[in-house]
């Protein structure tokens, strides 16, 4: 098992929480669909950071492997999500989510 980390894991987790919240705020307040999508990426990253930090604390490599899978799934998600955005833009001529309320009751 490696030496104890030079910086306390708690600092990494606090930073993760802050960055995650900023991603949440981005999803809630931005109206450009691409910006919302980027904010989701911003939320995924601190989750990965927390996983790597705990992997380091535990001396277990499994946390890092989960991050590897998260990054792979994020790549797949971005490919499909951006294709969706392009398709929506072609039909509606906008990606402002306030304009896209066709399913509103």
């Amino acid at each position, binding site marked *: 098992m490696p030496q104890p980390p030079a910086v306390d894991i708690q600092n990494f987790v606090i*930073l993760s929480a802050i960055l995650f919240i900023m991603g949440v705020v981005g999803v809630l307040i931005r109206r450009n669909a691409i910006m919302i999508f*980027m904010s989701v990426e911003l939320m995924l990253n601190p989750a990965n950071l927390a996983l790597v930090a705990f992997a380091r604390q535990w001396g277990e490599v499994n946390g*890092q492997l989960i991050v590897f899978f998260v990054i792979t799934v994020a790549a797949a998600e971005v490919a499909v999500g951006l294709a969706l955005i392009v398709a929506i833009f072609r039909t509606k001529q906008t*990606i402002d989510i306030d304009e896209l309320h066709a399913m509103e009751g």
Partner: protein
Amino acid sequence: MSLEAILFFIVAVIAVGSAAAMLTSRNAVHSALFLVVNFACVAFFYLMLNAPFLAMIQITVYAGAIMVLFMFVIMLLGAEKLGTGPVHYAWLAPLGSLLAAVFIVVAMFVIVNGKIGSLQPVPHDPELRVVHALPGAPALDIYMNKVKALKTLDYTQATEYVRVPPGRYFVNFYPACANGATCPDPIATNAKPVATAVFDLAPETSTIYVVAGKPAAPQVYTVNTTQDRSVMADETNARVRAINALPESAPVNLVVIDPATGTAGQTLVNSLPSGKVSDPVELPKGTYDLVWIRGADRVAASNDLRLNPKTAELIVLTQEANGAAIRDTSISVEPTLVAETFGSPQQIGISLLSTFLLPFELVSLLLLAAMVGAIILTREEVTRRVRERRVVTEGALRINRARAEAAQANVPQTNAESSAD
């Protein structure tokens, strides 16, 4: 404050600042560039946390491939300034910010009160393997606390490392039951074991037990190999450890023989008494001829012993039954891999191709599905538009036909048109 802590706080401020700039900038291209800065900061944290492989993945896949895709779509759609028009849901922004503030207070409370930094990992279970070096004995089944734990261990063979819960085990070695044959349960019939031993297993240790000695009076020797399996500084070396398992013997030396001249070279182990285990010796990888020497006599030899890098090997000096006679021999136990450096690409790769093989395959299938999905999504759009156009032209043709019929029948045109609709 240590250098690491100062670096951490500088990069943390950059990460939070770039995230804030990403959220507030009106131009989506600027936001994407700020997000790249944020990803680079996270990659730096990965490096600080002994995850160099993930740091490289973060840079290449996230900051590279994914952000290029984002940039491409922003440019393709001309979406730099979209989403800045009149606001429909003005109450969402203050409410969202309020919820975020509540969330961050709760998260801080949990993190600080949970004392995350002082949590301790659960210790690993001890691991053990058994080597059969008892001359003249049959293959062995091994019962730990009266439960069959390992079966059919042949002479000169070794089991894999197995993990068991820590504790004290009373171990009996019984002759193995031949494949397919039905044998009486030695525990139920109270059979006499070939050998018995007590294993005391502490957490976070690796141990090799060597069954050796005289056929009439077997001995079980304990070799603590925790150090043997620890990370190796020089990755081209191999570790060698020797045990003198002869029942009665003067101290012996283990010597490397020079293959060209056949004379004794480097002495690996000096005067190893009977029943003792040497310290591990690191040797460069390669093929060696090793010989046990007592005084001037060559007792036994392990010839053409291949040492692979990053492996740990155990060499046992014991006896073998040769008909009625018994002579000394040297056994090299099948080597095991030394632990990899934490978070190294090798360690990640080994885990990916062993423990995580199924998720790895599933994720590759998911990527394939995502690729197909992206193509279908864009193709579907084209086919749908074609279909729409066809509906429109068919409708127009029908109206025209109705108009022509109405003109011929002198019926008022408006009625025909409404019926066509």
